[in-house]
């Protein structure tokens, strides 16, 4: 059935370069320059897909990014397959494989097509209304609904292509390279502005570049020839950058725009290797000129969706640009002069035109006269009332319109055709303008929304500003540019412009039919199958707001975002509801203007580059020890060190036992370290910690707890006094950055009078912690010059010393409850320090332990972990840490909040220890805690925050928060699990060595 509808050589198509491709498994041919749509049309193929709801056959409708129907699945390869690609935008290449979507088993025979016959019982809101009841059945319905719907298939394997992001800064950005954009680019660049011109198409010149009729002339040249010279000129301008195949997706405030640049999608597969596929441009422009053009409106009449019905401008472009006839028996149907431009183009190319149907009655237009001169029948004051042809239009019926345009009269005339070009006038493409926050106004004379109030330094010119004719463009655009760019003169003064276009239009949003509306299918949104009938139904059911009607009928909610039919939806609502178009407003246009691939959005942030990660200076040693790592903030921390195929549990049990029995070693480099200096350093610490700091002696360490102003625990850590006015504070690993930020905030904004300087030194030091009964023996070998006796170096004290020539800071502090030392050295000596400790500890079976063992050991001692045992609702009192809250200090951050009516409640959740009845049963962290299983609803008292099996106590231990837990010591509670109940007893959270004997062992 393949035939050749290539009519005449076009200079935009290279007929010496033949390309083969597959569509739905069949091989077709096209030429370099073709889109998938133009190549298929050249082979006589219109039917390319099925509609979403009724599965009606649908054909190519447009020649651009507004295409609602011809959306296809690209590639078969499961990693590169891409759904929802518009056939009108795909430039064909050797090896292209595409297939129809939303049809099964095939586009020619689609089982879902039965929905079309069921359509009387599938009105707007059908799914909402029908499947809401009974609610519990939704899961069952959903499976079938999802199976029969769906637009395309997503890839099942990772995307192998390369994407990237790029920042661009420019003085002037021009969006759209049609005639207005070209004029703007030349004017801006020639006046010294660093200019960027982008267009979504692969060529410059918009729709003017293929305009071939001498009805449109500039300075006595056909407009396309004139524009071609302009384009050749701007290509030579140095401070003008031009990017084609670049679609602006989003226009944000402050002239920040996102654009997608397509780099390889048009190349043969073999030429794409190692090249970036798409680039997300992040453009910051001082000034933005929108020259985005306009989109032709369809006409809304009964059965206006059959394959073979296209926009009139698309029929013209296929003929003029691609040299393709969309049909052999063409009819045009219009309410304005645009269709006659198409008719003239077709006539020039020798393409047969059966008739032109015009809504208007009396029109004086040179274009119409030209058509009538060539014996083409023009039906004036007529409308199409119906069409026929299931998979391709084959006939239309027309009738005369009544004076008010609401009814049809007279007798029906049938005209055979295989293509119907429709034109309902033009809609300015204001999507990007409104995305930027711009406000529109409605122009009554031709029923269009045009830009009114600009929110940033920008302007809209040309047809996106409502200047549709060549005359208007060439007189208004230079005027607008002069004002916007603040220049005196352009190259476009005193141009001689000839245009035969008559602006008159007969706008009827919903064209009447001889049938009642209930029996017709006038589609408004082609992709989502929303008809004028659905919109009227929504209004009858009480919907008034345009945003509500949109969601109820799904008008404008497809991947095309209703670029074609949204205006008609508004028109029909305003007519039916009797409101004014201007007052009704529009639905919100949201980014992206055309869909973006996930690859473009993500750019290079995939795989190991998904997020940055930080390694400690000792990382290599952990790798050598075969550590498993866990992410703590951005840090990779050694989690546990499995030996000989040990499970995590076994490794942690072994590490925990070794640390208490002999010696353990931990990389503590990730803890936040803040250097604090200044004459007011002690006063500052007094204000940020809950406990007192003034009396801390030089060379001593103290544990501190930091609250938020609301009294809730924020961070904790040990701070050491290095000198009279010099401290080093440690924070939790995850809290380092926010704690520094908080301290700076208070210093700069609340207490600027304090003489305090803060420096983050987390990355400057590597920290090795050695703990256990043999730790002292090990560190004294590593640092032989230091006196480690308890008298000289007691618990909670600090020494400045050296290992050979290397300076180091040693603190005797403990997070495990064991005798323990933390040695800090300059980061680049960290690895050698670790190795030295391992060497010295060999005879004591020194055992590297990770974060999991660290957590277990501290839980045995009942030490909290901020963020695990606390959330943002725990005060120090809730944690049973009253001892750390100074009663004497007049003020500190959060003090006042500790006796608010809410924080002094007795029944707040409080931290307690939990012991299971069966000592081998380990609780699940996060499990709920209850007291009474019989009283419904069961009252939740709290939850388990930390839980481990302790190898040292040989039993399960847990910490949890329980409402009023402080006064429940010894009480029995229940942990309800899916398949059982676990009995627990509330206990002291300190499970091991309450007397702290081990610290000095």
């Amino acid at each position, binding site marked *: 059935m393949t035939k050749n509808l290539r009519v005449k050589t076009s200079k935009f198509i290279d007929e010496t370069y033949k390309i083969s491709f597959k569509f739905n498994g069949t091989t077709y041919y096209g030429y370099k320059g073709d889109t998938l749509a133009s190549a298929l049309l050249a082979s006589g193929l219109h039917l390319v897909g099925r509609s979403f709801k009724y599965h009606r056959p649908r054909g190519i409708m447009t020649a651009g990014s507004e295409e609602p129907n011809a959306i296809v699945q690209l590639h078969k390869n499961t990693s590169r397959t891409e759904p929802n690609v518009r056939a009108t935008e795909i430039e064909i290449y050797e090896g292209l494989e595409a297939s129809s979507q939303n049809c099964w088993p095939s586009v020619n025979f689609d089982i879902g097509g039965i929905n079309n016959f069921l359509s009387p019982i599938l009105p707007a809101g059908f799914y909402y209304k029908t499947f809401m009841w009974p609610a519990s059945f939704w899961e069952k319905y959903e499976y079938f609904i999802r199976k029969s719907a769906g637009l395309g298939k997503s890839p099942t394997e990772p995307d192998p292509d390369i994407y990237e992001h790029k920042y661009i800064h420019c003085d002037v950005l021009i969006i759209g390279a049609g005639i207005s954009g070209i004029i703007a680019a030349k004017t801006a660049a020639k006046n010294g502005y660093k200019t960027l011109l982008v267009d979504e198409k692969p060529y410059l010149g918009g729709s003017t570049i293929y305009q071939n009729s001498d009805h449109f002339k500039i300075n006595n040249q056909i407009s396309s020839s004139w524009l071609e010279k302009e384009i050749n000129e701007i290509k030579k301008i140095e401070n003008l950058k031009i990017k084609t195949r670049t679609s602006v997706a989003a226009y*944000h*405030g*402050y002239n*920040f725009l996102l654009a997608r640049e397509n780099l390889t999608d048009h190349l043969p597969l073999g030429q794409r290797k190692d090249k970036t596929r798409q680039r997300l441009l992040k453009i*910051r422009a001082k000034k933005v000129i929108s020259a985005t053009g306009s989109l032709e409106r369809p006409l809304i009449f009964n059965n206006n969706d059959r394959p073979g019905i296209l926009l009139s401008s698309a029929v013209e472009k296929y003929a003029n640009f691609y040299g393709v006839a969309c049909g052999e028996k063409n009819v045009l149907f219009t309410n304005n002069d645009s269709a006659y431009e198409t008719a003239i183009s077709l006539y020039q190319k020798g393409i047969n035109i059966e008739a032109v149907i015009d809504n208007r009655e009396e029109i004086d237009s040179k274009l119409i006269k030209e058509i009538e001169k060539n014996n083409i029948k023009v039906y004036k004051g007529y409308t199409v009332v119906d069409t026929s042809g299931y998979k391709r239009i084959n006939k239309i019926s027309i009738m005369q319109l009544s004076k008010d345009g609401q009814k049809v009269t007279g007798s029906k005339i049938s005209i055979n055709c295989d293509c119907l070009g429709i034109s309902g006038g033009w809609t300015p493409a204001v999507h990007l303008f409104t995305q930027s*926050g711009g406000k529109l106004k409605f122009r009554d004379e031709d029923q269009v929304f045009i830009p009114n109030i600009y*929110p940033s330094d920008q302007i809209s010119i040309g047809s996106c500003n409502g200047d549709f004719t060549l005359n208007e463009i060439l007189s208004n655009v230079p005027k607008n540019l002069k004002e916007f760019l603040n220049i005196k003169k352009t190259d476009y003064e005193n141009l001689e412009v000839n245009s035969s276009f008559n602006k008159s239009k007969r706008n009827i949003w919903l064209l009447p039919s001889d049938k009642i509306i209930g029996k017709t299918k006038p589609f408004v949104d082609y992709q989502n199958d929303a008809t004028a009938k659905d919109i009227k139904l929504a209004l009858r059911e009480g919907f008034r707001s345009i945003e509500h009607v949109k969601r109820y009928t799904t008008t404008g909610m497809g991947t095309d975002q209703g670029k074609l039919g949204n205006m008609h939806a508004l028109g029909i609502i305003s007519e039916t509801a009797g409101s004014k178009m201007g007052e009704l407003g529009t639905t919100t246009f949201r980014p992206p203007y055309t869909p973006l691939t996930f690859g473009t959005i993500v750019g290079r942030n995939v795989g190991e580059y998904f997020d940055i990660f930080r390694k400690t200076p000792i990382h290599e040693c952990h790798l050598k020890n075969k550590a498993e790592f866990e992410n703590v903030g951005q840090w990779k921390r050694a989690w546990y060190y499995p030996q000989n195929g040990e499970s995590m549990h076994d490794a942690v049990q072994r590490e925990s036992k070794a640390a208490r029995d002999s010696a353990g070693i931990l990389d503590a480099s990730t803890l936040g370290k803040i250097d604090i200096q200044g004459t007011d350093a002690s006063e500052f610490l007094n204000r940020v910690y809950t406990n007192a700091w003034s009396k801390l002696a030089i060379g001593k360490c103290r544990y501190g707890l930091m609250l938020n*102003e*609301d009294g809730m625990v924020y961070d904790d850590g040990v701070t050491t006094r290095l000198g009279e006015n010099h401290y080093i504070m440690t924070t939790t690993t995850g809290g380092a950055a926010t704690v520094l*930020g908080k301290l*700076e*905030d208070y210093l*700069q*904004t*609340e207490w*600027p009078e304090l003489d305090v300087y803060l420096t983050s030194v987390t990355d400057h030091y590597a920290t090795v912690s050695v703990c256990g009964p043999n730790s002292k023996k090990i560190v004294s070998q590593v640092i032989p010059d230091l006196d480690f006796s308890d008298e000289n170096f007691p618990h909670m004290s600090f020494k400045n010393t050296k290992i050979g020539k290397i300076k180091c800071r040693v603190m005797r502090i403990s997070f495990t409850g064991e005798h323990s030392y933390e040695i800090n050295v300059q980061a680049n000596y960290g690895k050698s320090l670790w190795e030295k400790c391992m060497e010295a500890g060999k005879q004591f079976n020194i055992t590297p332990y990770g974060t999991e063992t660290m957590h277990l050991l501290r839980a045995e001692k009942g030490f909290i972990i901020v963020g695990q045992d606390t959330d943002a609702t725990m005060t120090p009192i809730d944690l049973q840490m009253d001892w750390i809250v100074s009663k004497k200090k*007049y*003020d500190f951050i959060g*003090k*006042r*909040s500790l006796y*608010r*009516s809410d924080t002094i409640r007795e029944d707040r959740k409080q931290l307690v220890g939990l012991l299971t009845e069966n000592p081998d049963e380990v609780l699940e962290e996060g499990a709920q805690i209850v007291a009474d299983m019989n009283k419904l609803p069961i009252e939740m008292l709290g939850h388990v925050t930390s839980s481990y099996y302790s190898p040292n106590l040989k039993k399960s231990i847990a910490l949890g928060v329980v409402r009023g837990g402080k006064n429940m010591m010894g009480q029995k509670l229940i942990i309800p699990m899916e398949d059982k109940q676990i009995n627990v007893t509330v206990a002291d959270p300190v499970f091991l060595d309450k007397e702290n004997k081990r610290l000095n062992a």
Partner: protein
Amino acid sequence: MFVINCPYCGEREQSEFKAGGEAHIVRPKQPTELSDDQWAEYLFMRKNIKGVQFERWVHTHGCRKWFNVVRDTSNDLIKAVYKMGEKPPTK
């Protein structure tokens, strides 16, 4: 994403900054003298205006300085920027 004119560094992308809520809320000098209601007023109550709002920002990924911004929350336009301790612009 907007551009903020840091009073110390000049114009930078918003992503370099962090917002710190409403400006000119002074921490009471003597919190312990306050009633629960007065303390709650300081702690919790914020205006959250649609329109011109005075707010705090910090140049986190730059000079790390806090400063004040006058921003119209309805369209994100920044009317003025001034340092901590300086008087807010009157018009």
